[in-house]
């Protein structure tokens, strides 16, 4: 199977000079198409930092990070933007735009694609919201939804653009057990249907069962790759 994320000898530090704080130390990991990988590890071990580098949000300078056949080490803004556009993100907080309805929020992902008409965008978005069980809530504002529903809107927003990769950073942290599990189950079901690769960071041991593989990051190193 093809490798969509290929990290070789990635090192990353915050700060410079005497204040340099190494966060990621010589990390090597490959993730295949359609794989669901969960990453756990103690707080401060560098999970979020790792995710932001993979997602093209943070610039790393040492090692090799190939995402969707693009080198992100010392990359241009253009490359990072194009990688971002092919990745779906799910944040710990839902991070929906609070002045937009659920439907409009999901549709924001598609507005970057010229190939669709507005009609098609809204149809796709509505379909995706139905898939996450929010068919009845299309025109609700985020404030009118529960935390679990908001996170499901986020999932719809991340998936509607049919990304090759979904990155999620503690998506269940602000949810109770029930809705947390519900959210990741939906995520897993939809991802499997479309062969989407998922890299999910979590402290939440209740959801480890959805994973194909679990890796543990400790002090900037992968423990059991």
């Amino acid at each position, binding site marked *: 199977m093809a490798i969509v994320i290929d990290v070789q000898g990635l090192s990353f530090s915050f700060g410079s000079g005497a204040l340099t704080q190494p966060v990621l130390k010589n990390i090597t990991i490959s993730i295949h198409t359609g794989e669901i990988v969960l990453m756990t590890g103690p707080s401060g071990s560098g999970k979020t930092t790792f995710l932001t580098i993979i997602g093209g949000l943070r610039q790393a300078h040492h090692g090799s990070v190939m995402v969707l056949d693009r080198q992100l080490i010392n990359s241009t803004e253009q490359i990072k933007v194009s990688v971002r556009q092919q990745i779906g993100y799910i944040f710990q907080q839902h*991070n929906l735009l*609070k002045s937009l309805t659920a439907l*409009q929020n999901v549709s924001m992902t598609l507005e*970057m694609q010229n190939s669709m008409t507005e009609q098609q965008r809204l149809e796709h978005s509505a379909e995706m919201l139905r898939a996450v069980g929010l068919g009845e809530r299309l025109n609700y504002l985020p404030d009118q939804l529960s935390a679990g529903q908001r996170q499901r809107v986020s999932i719809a927003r991340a998936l509607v653009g049919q990304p090759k990769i979904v990155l999620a950073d503690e998506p269940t942290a602000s949810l109770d057990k029930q809705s947390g599990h519900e959210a990741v189950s939906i995520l897993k079901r939809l991802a499997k249907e479309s062969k989407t690769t998922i890299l999910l960071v979590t402290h939440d041991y209740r959801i480890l069962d959805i994973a194909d593989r679990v890796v543990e990051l400790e002090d900037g190193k992968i423990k059991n790759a």
Partner: protein
Amino acid sequence: MNGIAWFYFPARLAWRQLIFDRTKLIAATSGVLFACVLVFMQLGFRDSLYASAASAPVKLNGDLFLMHKQSEAMWRPVQFKRSELMRTLGHAAVAEVYPLYSALAPFKNIETQIKRTLMVYGLDPDSMIFDLTGLKNKQTELRLKDTVLFDEFSRPEFGPMRQLLMAGQHTTEINDYKVTVIGLFRLGVSFASDGNVITSDLNFMRIFPNRNVSDIDLGVIRLQPNTSIKQTQNELRSRLNESVNIFTYEELLEYEMNYWANIAPIGFIFGFGTVMGLVVGLVIVYQILFTDITNHRNEFATLKAMGYEHGYFVRVVFASAFFLAILGFIPGYFLSIFLYQLAESQTFMPMPMNISKVLTVFVFILSMCATAGLLAIRKLKSANPADMF
């Protein structure tokens, strides 16, 4: 992104974010509205000032005009010798010359007996120095002793002259000298004078006993037909005393306007008022956009993480600025129309709302909002998607 989508989508997002918070929208709009009204009023008063300042010179009927170099404007002349004017008759192109005498003097309201200052012009009744219909059929009557014509467009504080004349009341005092009002003309008030009176040169000397026929305020020169005004002006200039300016009609108007625009502090005051209005508006709009970006920083960072580029957010901010400009301008325009009418009824000076003024103010407001947007955009940099997770 291409075509319409390039601006439409960010503009739509800006609009949705603007109308989401109505209270803030109203506050922002009021700020723009305030700036808009302020600028409209300043420009209105300024234009009205310039227009009325030239109300007397506009009606002057001549080809060339002599004025003392120290005369800053027609309403505050420095006298020069009539012989200077007469000397120009030596030039072959000069057909006729007439002196104009002018002075500010108290005029007694016939009804209330209250005195108020207006401008008195003294001229040869046959000269038609002023191109005014009210003057035409009164030329002989104006030669009689102590007769004057009154400007119907003077401020009402001088009394309802038309009704008074019909009621047979036509005697009053100018400069404590008894005169008879024999008719009306229409000239208009200016910042310099609240009203006008025209009388004959001889009556003028009677009203102002310490004035002298040989010291004149303005010289009006008419040329023979088919002669070059410019050329004659140049030739005359070399013959005239250095202390006297010689103007064409256009130059005289310009000189008057320039006085109000640059020499009198008034022009500066209006310019200053305009700038202040724009600065206040700028600060308000900047403040609104800035807090807006701050409040939406997380949302912008989220969108950045999704692959939206910096330019998209720049367009969102500019679109917000544009919407605020429009939303503030429209009510500002209507409020200003109302205030113009109010001001007109109070000052008796024309305050027309014309298309060029509307465009000017709109461009001002738009650039004001755009500048505010430009300043606020720097804040966008702080929306770093790496801090989102």
